């Protein structure tokens, strides 16, 4: 007793697929006792119509032709479940995303839709009722990345009473926000609002903070991840270090100051900034004289706490988690190769905006005095150029960085506050300031702080007499513009953080064209990923500003809290099973199973295979590896797939 429901999806489907013809064709398909077309099947009246038909006609199998099963399979399983059917006696046929939306010829699209429905009917006719299983949930969350998003997510989850491990790659949490001087549009001091949150993380009883650490291997699945975390050797015993900085003072090995975007200089052993959490030194072996030349040990000698241990080795910690939040943030686009006319990094006074932020910051290397890198002089004329590696197809980066317009305005304002007689020029393409209070802010930069906005791109920058000549176009005036600048600040685009792609692969989540992690659905699953139990927060998912990152982190935390408040999770019943009467005991299934879900069981004539359902994830590798096909994936049996192939070609 099979029912076929064809969704019109308003005109989304009905404009290209003749749903009436699909219904007519469905009525002649084997086993079909009911077929109808519904305007919006997923709507409340739509679902009610389905349930009514099931109950009135006694349907036992349902084919839903409509949108992608990735969209609404769960919706309709629940609906038919409410009608008293086994929720798995449903087949969704995708006639929207993979049919009506990609075709324009009604006959072709309708013919294809009919083929697909016939395929769905064949498949669901061979479907057996399935019962979802359950698996216990590990009540612990992993947050990867200790920027503002990671901090927010960790605190929200921890506040709900759920233990959290926060893993940070560098030696301190804080991320990019810790580098900022002020934040737009309120001009809050960035450190003043962030550092208390960082300290809270350190002190929270439910948060275990692991710095210098990275996720190395991920096993398991939603509710039951088993994750290896590598804590890299820092040569400092974290518990002993008091953060007194004597080691850093005495260290003879110079090293780049990554935190300050190389605006200053650091040491091989250092604490990146004074509000670092944890306030613990780390040693970078690649710059340390002891590790390069074999002789030094100054830091060990001067450390009053005995915290230095050169023999320290990486440790790999394996922990179980029920959910994961990825908050790896962003990196900056390396503009030097793509914009050769800007000097390719050869002019020290052409810098990116993050470095400028450090020059503006009172906690920065210059103590908040703006000094240009080449000669330490205070600049007077400063040119900001927007959209470097953003909105620029010519370098393969079409997307908007979403924060450049705002921080250029902010930096122009701050520049005027620092150097009242300075003049900022801003080359822009469009001023995008859609947030709350944003547009007002960019206007104030012009009206109250005298920033000169020039609509156009900069063609060339070259040095002349200790200054930089910026040659650009003013597209509004239709003129060439030439500005003699003391300092040029580039608003570079955002990229995924280094190593984000590798992490995404380890977590089995997708990335988009620019390498940002892909959300489950652009509208409806903005913090989920395609892997159950893995959520996204902040700029790892795409460029965004602080409020958006914090909001997404809170949302991700809410998802995690919701997930981990359950004691057991429903598991997919679409797992493998063995027909032990036929199993020859060759265990090719066991050889290929990625989850160790196949075990040997004693039978009358030797051993046969058995599937541990709670471990099986339903990939079906075993089914193909088994020559007689006696291990089969429920819901995707050989005969179901064969029937689909045969029927769709009929």
């Amino acid at each position, binding site marked *: 007793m099979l029912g076929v429901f064809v969704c019109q999806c308003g005109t989304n489907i009905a404009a290209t697929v003749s749903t009436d013809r699909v219904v007519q064709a469905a009525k002649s398909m084997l086993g079909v006792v009911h077929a109808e077309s519904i305007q919006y099947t997923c709507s409340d009246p739509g679902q009610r119509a389905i349930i009514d038909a099931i109950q009135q006609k006694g349907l036992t199998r349902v084919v839903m032709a409509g949108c992608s099963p990735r969209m609404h399979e769960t919706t309709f399983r629940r609906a038919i479940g409410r009608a008293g059917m086994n929720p798995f006696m449903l087949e969704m046929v995708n006639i929207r995303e993979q049919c009506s939306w990609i075709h324009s010829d009604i006959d072709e699209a309708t013919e294809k839709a009919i083929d697909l429905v016939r395929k769905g009917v064949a498949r669901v006719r061979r479907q057996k009722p399935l019962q979802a299983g359950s698996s216990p949930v590990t009540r612990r969350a992993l947050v990867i990345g200790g920027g503002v998003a990671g901090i927010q997510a960790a605190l929200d989850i921890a506040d709900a009473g759920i233990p959290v491990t926060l893993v940070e790659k560098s030696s301190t949490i804080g991320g990019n926000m810790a580098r900022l001087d002020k934040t737009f549009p309120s001009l809050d001091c960035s450190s003043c609002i962030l550092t208390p949150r960082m300290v809270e993380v350190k002190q929270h009883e439910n948060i275990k903070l692991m710095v210098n650490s990275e996720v190395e291997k991920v096993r398991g699945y939603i509710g039951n991840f088993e994750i290896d975390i590598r804590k890299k050797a820092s040569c400092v015993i974290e518990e002993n270090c008091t953060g007194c900085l004597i080691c850093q003072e005495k260290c003879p090995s110079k090293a780049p100051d990554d935190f300050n975007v190389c605006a200053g200089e650091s040491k091989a052993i250092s604490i990146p900034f004074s509000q670092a959490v944890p306030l613990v030194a780390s040693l970078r072996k690649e710059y340390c004289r002891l590790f390069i030349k074999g002789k030094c040990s100054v830091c060990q000698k001067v450390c009053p706490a005995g915290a230095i241990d050169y023999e320290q080795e990486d440790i790999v910690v394996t922990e179980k988690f029920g959910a994961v939040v990825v908050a790896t943030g962003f990196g900056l686009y390396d503009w030097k190769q793509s914009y050769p006319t800007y000097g390719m990094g050869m002019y020290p006074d052409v810098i990116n905006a993050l470095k400028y932020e450090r020059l503006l910051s009172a906690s920065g290397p210059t103590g908040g005095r703006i000094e240009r890198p080449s000669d330490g002089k205070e600049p007077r004329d400063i040119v900001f150029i927007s959209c470097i590696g953003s909105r620029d197809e010519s370098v393969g980066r079409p997307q908007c960085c979403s924060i450049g317009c705002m921080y250029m305005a902010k930096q122009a304002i701050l520049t005027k506050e620092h150097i009242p007689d300075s003049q900022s020029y801003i080359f822009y393409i469009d001023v995008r300031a859609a947030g709350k209070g944003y547009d007002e802010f960019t206007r104030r930069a012009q009206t109250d702080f005298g920033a000169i906005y020039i609509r156009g791109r900069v063609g060339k920058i070259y040095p002349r007499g200790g200054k930089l000549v910026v040659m650009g176009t003013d597209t509004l005036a239709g003129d060439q513009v030439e500005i003699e600048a003391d300092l040029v600040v580039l608003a570079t685009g955002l990229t995924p953080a280094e190593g984000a792609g590798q992490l995404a692969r380890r977590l089995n989540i997708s990335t988009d064209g620019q390498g940002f992690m892909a959300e489950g659905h652009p509208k409806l699953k903005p913090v989920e990923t395609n892997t159950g139990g893995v959520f996204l927060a902040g700029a790892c998912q795409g460029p965004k500003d602080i409020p958006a990152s914090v909001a997404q982190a809170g949302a991700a935390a809410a998802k995690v809290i919701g997930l981990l408040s359950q004691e057991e999770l429903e598991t997919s019943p679409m797992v493998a099973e063995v027909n032990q009467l036929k199993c*020859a005991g*060759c265990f090719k299934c066991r*050889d*290929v199973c990625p989850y160790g879900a196949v075990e040997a069981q004693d039978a009358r004539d030797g051993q046969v295979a058995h599937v541990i359902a709670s471990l099986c994830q339903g990939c079906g590798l075993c089914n193909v*590896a088994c*020559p*007689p096909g006696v291990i*089969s994936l429920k819901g995707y*049996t*050989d005969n179901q797939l064969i029937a689909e192939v045969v029927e769709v070609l009929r």
Partner: protein
Amino acid sequence: MSMNDLIATIKKVLEEVDVVLGWTRSPAAGVAVPARFHTPDEADGAIFDSTCTHNLAVHLPRLKNSKVGIVAKGCDARSIVQLIVEGEVSRDRIRVIGVPCPGVIDVKRAWRCFGFGKKIEDAGGRVHMEGRSMPREEILLHKCHQCQDQEPVIMDLAAGDVKSVTPPPPPDKTGIRERFAAMSIAERREFWREQFSRCIRCYACREACPLCFCRDACSMQTREPHWTGGQVNAIESEMAQQVRTSHLAGRCTGCEECERACPVGIPLMLLLEEQNRIVEELFAYRAGMSLEDKTPLLTYDVNRDGGWR
């Protein structure tokens, strides 16, 4: 190797096993037939000659509960290794007696030339039957031409000097293989339709294959999975053979038993030889060469895979 060497070796092995699988001469057929030797007296009938075509390894999975000795040609030894690799045969239950094999002959073709049943003898580079003879290289099984595996890869005892064998010559270039290679894809489609139209689905190919050990559950004839219908016709029979071929990918040792067993002479090895060649080309792998090997389609190599195209 003299027959006495072989018989003595079998008798020695019989001291530690329940049965030795070997060959004896069938008076009616005039050629070697498989035999099981349980006692030293029975072992006196053992022979090895170029009519010992059968791959006795096929019996090993059926004798799981006995200690078994087996007389093995080089090619048979590869099947034994593959069976051990796949866990179908346990190494400590078997004793392998290697024999020096100069290549075995296509007995069916000999019968077609000479008639069934008279004693076939192989001497002086020629195969003789009742006063008629032909050069042995003209009637060798295809696998024996340029055989690379004359020395058994697995062996507990040798009956004779298994290293002393001179390799047989390359095959004559006029055979079915060369014609098949020259065919267009459309001609091959026709070729297989024609060939499989005479298949009777007796499954001798499967039963003679040492590595088709699923036997009773074999999906060449199941309805679940229903890869192929039960009708005996070219389409279903070809699909059934594709099922078998596909299941032997990376496992077939090229022993040619399926083709030898086929009562209607379908050149099944055209498919398996090609598949074996592909597997070797892609994975530098020949089945049954080492007990440490992993069957290539049951594993992967992240670093090397994918550089194929």
